[in-house]
């Protein structure tokens, strides 16, 4: 579906998005209408259920998120617009669901307040459950991002299981590999090359990093995996692996 849509448009999606940012409202309407199936799918991915665009509130949240994504997309980040939009939609929908859930909690609290004396233990329990819930929300964000991360890794013919086998076990080795990934991510030309060819130009990288060619070659896959993590807009995942992204 997406492929077909992309093909029917001569102009790349990213270019269209940039045009909308320049004030091309016609294209914005076109994008919003033609990407509704994509939005529905992204929303349904978060909610884990079928989303009916006519009825579900989540879908309109997703539509709004998609619109926001159009405005906030930056090509410099490297990731494709659809990946970016998907993450934005996921986050917004999660936010929405959490807010809805909070309202329910508040209501229940109100209800408990309706009772004569709310016990402190009860409050404490609810507070604990609230923390638990917030934690669960973070997990949820991350889960969405991890799924997306896994998809992106597949583009590079990588998998988590494989990474678990080949990722450097020693801290220093891991750090130096992450440095290489960081360097590739920072360099515009290298980033474009890797995103395009899905492989590391070891010869071009080697002179600029403090790592031997052999080490780069050995940790090639891990470097790519870290690179993908850096390139994509994995807000929550990156927050977890702070050491990597900074």
């Amino acid at each position, binding site marked *: 579906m997406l492929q077909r849509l992309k093909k029917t448009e001569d102009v790349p999606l990213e270019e269209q998005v940039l045009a909308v940012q320049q004030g091309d409202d016609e294209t914005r309407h076109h994008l919003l209408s033609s990407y509704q199936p994509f939005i529905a799918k992204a929303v349904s991915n978060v909610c884990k259920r079928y989303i009916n665009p006519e009825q579900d509130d989540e879908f309109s949240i997703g539509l709004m998120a998609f619109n926001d994504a159009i405005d906030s997309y930056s090509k410099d980040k490297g990731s494709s617009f659809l990946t970016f939009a998907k993450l934005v939609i996921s986050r917004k929908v999660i936010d929405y669901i959490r807010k809805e859930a909070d309202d329910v909690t508040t209501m229940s609290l109100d209800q408990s307040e309706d009772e004569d004396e709310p016990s402190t233990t009860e409050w404490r329990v609810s507070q604990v459950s609230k923390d638990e819930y917030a934690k669960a929300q973070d997990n949820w964000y991350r889960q969405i991002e991890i799924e997306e991360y896994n998809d992106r890794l597949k583009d590079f013919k990588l998998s*988590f299981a494989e990474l*678990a086998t080949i990722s450097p076990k020693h801290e220093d080795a891991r750090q130096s590999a992450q440095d290489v990934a960081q360097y590739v991510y920072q360099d515009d030309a290298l980033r474009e090359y890797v995103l395009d060819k899905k492989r590391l130009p070891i010869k071009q990288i080697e002179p600029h990093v403090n790592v031997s060619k052999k080490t780069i070659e050995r940790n090639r896959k891990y470097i790519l995996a870290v690179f993908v993590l850096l390139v994509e807009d994995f807000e929550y995942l990156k927050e977890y692996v702070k050491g990597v992204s900074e």
Partner: protein
Amino acid sequence: MKGIVVEHKKRYAVVMTADGGFYKTTIDRTHDIGEEVQFTPLEEKVGLMSKLRSLTLSPQWKVAAAIMLSLAIIYPLLSWTNQSPDTYAYINVDINPSVSFEVDESYDVIKAKPLNDDGEAVLTELGDVEGQSLQEISSQVITTSRDLGYLESERDILFGVSYANDMSGEDDSYLQSFSNDLQNQFQDEYELTLFEVPQDIREQAEEEGTSMNVLYASNQVLDQNEANDRDDDNRDDDQETDNTDSTDVSNQSEDGSNDSDAGTNDSSDESNESNRQIEQVLSRFLERMDRDDLPQGLRDKLDEVDIEDDRDEDDERETERDRDDHPVFGEDGPPGQRDDDNDQREDDRDDHPVFGEDGPPGQQKDENDDDQDEDDTRDDRDGEQEDDRDDHPVFGEDGPPGKQENDEREEEESDQDDERNDDREQADEREQREEDDRDDEKDDHPVFGEDGPPGKQKQEDSSDEDDESNRNRQNNDEEDSDDQPERDERDERNEDDGERERDNDWDEDDD
């Protein structure tokens, strides 16, 4: 350690730590993806399996494995079609031990394969033969066969050569020297026969799982038998067909081997001759062969022919026994061989009143210079014609002046039929008479004009008749039919000639 679950697999889960490390661990499935968990990494077993896995994971090993695999698949296919990449030719050696060799372009053996149990014994005795020259191996095979007691004296040794690709016109000097050398080496003891086996026969032999020599031999012998068959039934009427048959056979077997020495005068003669020898050797070879070794179909076919031609075969065997002492290679054959090599049907011709015992040897050769490819029929007839002319009662050796013209025509028109021939002879006669007439006019009877004196006419007729009798005798050989109507026809034609002659004179007057 702490990390977030990124993937659940059947036997383990993958966890990502805060410092960017990925680990395998065993955790409860109740932990969702994205959830932070406490875990202990699985110790990677550095066993054979993981090593194997890491091998299969690396791309260069994948490529190598792919190449090995495709080789493993393709190689049996190659050997199944018996077509190794650089096989240049296949040599089958049949003594009684039969061995098949594949050789490369420099005639070094690539592969040796026994074709029967004895062959296997010989090859075992020889050991590793690959890389040695065909020459060396062949003489070793022969001596080993002898040492092992397979080879009695004066046995035939057959070398069937089949090129992997179409090699017609290929340089066969190696094979020539090869055969010469072997010939010299074993001259006193054995007879060596070298022949080329067409590609399709080899392929057929491969399909049927038999020796290509056997198949080729049976094909040739069957052809020959058929030809003889027809020959016996209607030898005189069918001479032409017969000749065509034998040319077919020779064309089939000669192909590449003779093209190279087409330049020499007597190559076609000798190759025909060597073909006949080869046929004989082949038929002997087949007789010697244990019938059980032949493929069923072939055996039936041969049996069939045997029943039909019982008598013929006996005769053949007799004649063959006479010929047994002939050297086998055509190139080296002694000059006198020709007579013996002629088949029975040709023996008939030996009594020919015009050619005598030797047939038309010289002319045939001369004409072969130019008309290498023309069939025997034509050659023979031409020879007879020339003889005719040579013996011409009027012009003697030099023939009539117009003859040159005729010869040219002969060369131009290769597809002559009998009528044409007659025409030509008529033309000869015409010219001959013209001259006579002219003489008559000048010297004796100017009064009688073109027609000459009546007496003269008679004389001419009689000389014509000499000619005719020659021709008729010749016809007797070709066709056993009653020559009386023929003669009548000729008389009529002679009258026609008279008229044409006049026309001719008019033409000359115009000139």
